[in-house]
């Protein structure tokens, strides 16, 4: 259930940004969530319904952008798609644990008015 804490933090940051910009209302909130971040999009959506209540994000739309995991092979000096934390390079078959993308837990943007 740490999705609740993560979502609460997203709403907190969105509201903070809205207030700093002098906006009255949050129209949408866009998150960027890596495939290997440990956060489950469905659980985030569930948490969203709870945490936005009573805030200026109450009627906002939630968009979750999923980020595929990408590993870096030092031998080939190139990236490859991966599913895990330790992966075999499809070119040289060396193992790499150098994850370049896929762990994101970010708030990307908000739409305000």
């Amino acid at each position, binding site marked *: 259930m740490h999705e609740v804490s993560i979502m609460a933090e997203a709403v907190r940051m969105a509201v903070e940004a809205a207030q700093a910009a002098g906006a009255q209302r949050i*129209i949408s909130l866009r998150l960027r969530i890596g495939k290997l971040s440990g956060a489950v999009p469905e659980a985030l959506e569930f948490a969203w319904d709870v*945490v936005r209540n009573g805030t200026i994000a109450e009627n906002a739309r939630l968009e979750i952008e999923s980020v595929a995991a990408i590993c870096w092979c030092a031998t080939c000096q190139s990236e490859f798609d991966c599913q895990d934390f330790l992966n075999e390079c499809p070119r040289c078959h060396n193992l790499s644990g150098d994850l370049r993308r896929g762990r994101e837990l970010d708030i990307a943007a908000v*739409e*305000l008015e």
Partner: protein
Amino acid sequence: MCKECGCGLGGGDVKIGGHSHEHDQHHGHGHDHGHSHSHAPAPFKLDLNRSLMEKNNLLAEHNRGFFRAKKLLVLNVVSSPGSGKTTFIRETAVKLAGKLRVGVIVGDLATDNDAARLKTAGIPVIQITTGTVCHLDADMVSKAAAQLDLDKVDVLVIENVGNLVCPADYDLGEDLRVVLLSTTEGEDKPLKYPPMFHSAQVAIVTKSDLAAAAGFNRELALANLKRVSHHAEIFELSSKTGEGMKAWLDFLVKQRTLSQQRTAGPI
């Protein structure tokens, strides 16, 4: 609950050492716009591109700087419920007595049973009950640490809430993350919970005394551990019989020496 931004959720019912802590209410929102608010509300997009873990990560770095200045070695012990964290920490403290002084911060959803068990080892213990929150965060640890006399502690052990998912994302400011895998819970745990096992610097196979009875496949478990926690130091031990504890204790003493030689990092 902070009405302004709904941030109180998840923080409201945390108790540290028996005292309730209100969730921080003030966030220092900047309000200097230098213009009036009469403009019509036209929708606009604002790129933020900020990590949702930013606040926790910042507090964790504060903790780390503070712990280093105090010359502490700090462990964050994580596992599934019941893998043996409390028993393991208690035995570690008992066996280090006379060499290193251990202090414990222990997190559970409810009850202070674990704190009571740890206190029987004659060590300082602060219980955090998190209520509904499934992990410890850096803020809870900093408040709990303030209640311990850290000048009388060499190794600060933080027992996290029994959970292999959520604590993985929360840096507490520890030096080492220690993940436990007991012989009674299945060899494929590292494959099922890769973020947690991947983030650990130390992996401990516990309850080795029960391995035979549980039909534990040691080779498979170690292979899975090495696959996911490929950079982690691995120990196999039993907190009950003491088998394998020596290697772990020697490792801790060495790590503590290393942490003493280190200077406080920039905060």
